[in-house]
């Protein structure tokens, strides 16, 4: 089986779960004797593969990240052009490669960015198109003012795909209800994690994610204020960057808790692993979360996790605490309980680590191969 996979990010370049997913999936597919050519934009961090079945093909250059908005300043005016140009480049590069090395059995795209290329390749080469949906425009906009341009591209991709992989039943529901796609062509494959090692725990309550409306960091800060009234020694870390950073810093100043909240900005992979390892509580208060791999990462590092009830992660995982993202009283209740009650922390850490063993990329690859087999 030979797959042309088109992605947008791949470690070490990484802005979100899409990169983590592509990394784990392609490596496990390669181990299972699926040949994968992974097409992605050339970045300043060059990336490569140590597996003979997996070849990373860097195409052209682009300034766009998959979580960018067309109105962000740096790329204003050139956003749409850049997207189309990149997709054209990918199509040309794949065709070139087919001439040299022979045909692909299928083309597999991830999210909206490369859907145009996926559709073009499906049509010109008469091979099936598989589409993995990691998030939709509704998620990324926090369901406030979703952008029609993205939605149209997403719908076009979904309609043209022979098979859609959704990262959760939550996302499957969005795809059927908001995009009108037949549920029978959607398979749900939950994400996985490469476990992170546990460090020496400190009284740190962690938020880690893009600081965008989608991820709900503002609710984390509101809960932090309530926690600090009862547990003044607790420390809060907000790790990540994003357009909401200035607003969040102001919020913590207004709340008078800025001495208890550390904003780390964007962290390296080593730093991320370190902070997961030493935290006592991880909170993922996403407003809209198709899956939420960070929750798996935190739990793998022995950190008890509080996650949004609606997150795709929450539908698949038992040994965690769940909240409504807006219910900051309950969020604070749970944070305080975790800080106070050692047996609660211990049990969640132990049972969580046990459950995490089920979430392997090996399993994701097996299920993805099942999807390939269904359309070949």
């Amino acid at each position: 089986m030979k797959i042309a996979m088109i992605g947008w990010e791949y470690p070490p370049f990484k802005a979100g779960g899409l990169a983590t997913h592509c990394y784990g999936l392609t490596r496990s597919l390669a181990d299972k004797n699926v040949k994968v050519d992974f097409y992605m934009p050339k970045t300043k961090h060059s990336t490569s593969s140590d597996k003979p079945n997996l070849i990373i093909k860097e195409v052209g250059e682009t300034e766009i990240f998959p979580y960018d908005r067309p109105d962000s300043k740096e790329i204003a005016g050139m956003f749409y052009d850049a997207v189309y140009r990149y997709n054209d480049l990918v199509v040309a590069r794949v065709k070139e490669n087919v001439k040299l090395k022979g045909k692909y059995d299928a083309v597999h795209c991830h999210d909206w960015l490369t859907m145009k290329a996926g559709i073009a390749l499906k049509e010109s080469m008469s091979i099936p198109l598989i589409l993995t949906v990691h998030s939709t425009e509704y998620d990324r906009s926090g369901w406030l003012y979703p952008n029609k341009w993205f939605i149209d591209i997403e719908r076009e991709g979904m309609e043209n795909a022979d098979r859609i992989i959704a990262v959760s039943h939550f996302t499957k529901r969005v795809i059927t209800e908001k995009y009108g796609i037949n549920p029978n062509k959607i398979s749900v494959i939950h994400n996985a994690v490469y476990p992170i090692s546990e460090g020496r725990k400190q009284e740190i309550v962690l938020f880690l994610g893009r600081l965008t409306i989608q991820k709900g960091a503002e609710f984390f800060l509101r809960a932090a204020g309530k926690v600090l009234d009862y547990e003044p020694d607790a420390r809060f870390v907000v790790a990540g960057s994003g357009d909401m950073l200035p607003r969040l810093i102001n919020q913590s100043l207004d709340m008078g808790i800025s001495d208890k909240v550390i904003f780390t900005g964007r962290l390296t992979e080593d730093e991320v692993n370190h902070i997961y390892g030493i935290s006592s509580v991880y909170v993922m208060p996403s407003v809209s979360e198709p899956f939420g791999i960070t929750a798996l990462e935190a739990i793998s590092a022995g950190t008890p996790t509080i996650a949004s009830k609606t997150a795709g992660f929450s539908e698949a995982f038992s040994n965690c605490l769940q909240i409504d993202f807006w219910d900051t009283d309950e969020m604070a209740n749970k944070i305080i309980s975790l800080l106070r009650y050692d047996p609660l922390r211990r049990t969640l850490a132990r049972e969580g680590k046990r459950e995490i063993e089920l979430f392997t990329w090996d399993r994701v690859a097996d299920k993805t191969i099942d999807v390939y087999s269904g359309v070949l």
Partner: protein
Amino acid sequence: MASICLYFEVHQPIRLNRFSVFRIGNNNSNSSYFDRKLNQEIFEKVANKCYLPTNNLLLNLINEFDGKFKVSFSLTGTFVEYCEQFLPELLDSFKELFKTGSVDMIEETYYHSLSSLYDEMDEFEEQVRMHRKMIKNLFNYKPRVFRNTEAIFDNRIAKKVAEMGYKGIITEGTEKILHWRSPNYLYKPVNCDLKILLRNYTLSDDIGFRFSAKLWPGHPLTADKYANWMANNEGDLVNLFMDYETFGEHHWEDTGIFDFLSHLPGEVFKRQHLDFVTVSEATERYEPVGEIDAPWAISWADEDRDVSTWLGNDMQVACFNELKNIGRKVKEKGDEDMLNTWRRLQTSDHLYYVSTKGLQDGDVHAYFSPYDGPYDGFINYMNVLQDIKQKLD
């Protein structure tokens, strides 16, 4: 001749209100711990689906078969309190059943608690006495057979129960204590004089768990088929012990559970060598055939058949220890209302909700739990215990 001994556990816990850490130390009244509205709702729902129609059916069956159809009940104190508060006519219907002479009452701890596992047995004894008093008041009767919470049993408990004057005790017919032997006989403990009735878990769970399971090869289970299975069992006794809520609640009416029950006595009496006995009659009619040694506590719960359902993880052990520590202080204080509150918190269900057992058992736990999961159950229960602790200091 084999005797069928049908016994039903009738229990409802007093569920807790949502109690966040922010409420700890805010002069909460004892009654504010308990969710009266939810408790009443659930009680009335189960009463309408199960207790009232099943009582009615049993009464008709007893009359139809001239008192030869017999059953035994264990009513917990918390259940009886609900009846008194919300539905006194349900108690009347139990009294009417008892008056037929074909119904026996079983003793247990008033609060359906784990007090038999405390270091000292005094609290256990006290709760058994409370139950004895309650049964005396309601039925003017003194039970002869004891059944501990969820059939928890070990040598120490057996000895205490024998000392308290009971003739028989009920527990689980698990291989852990039986090894190769059959549950269909009476046994006695190694260390005292008491007759042990053992639950035939295969036949009991055929009704209790599997009755409505469409994938089970025995489905659909008819009274005729089931009577055949019982008739083919060797031994003196077939002990069928289950939650009373099996009828109409765990298996809804549309599964045919009431039809099954209503045809059961008739099918049993078609087989000459079968009849029904109450638990007391079972202990009078038969003699032990062997000894049971239970140095470690067993129970009828989950696949493990031990106490790990309530004390299987760190959270449960922490709550249990906290509860015991609070007990010492409560008794020193001599505050009756506080004592009653502490005892209501001892009902084993509160710890059951905190169980993190594996998927299969976990599903059953989730079905009964008022919480979103064991961790929420722990936080809520522990917060209440912390509040009480602060009140006592």
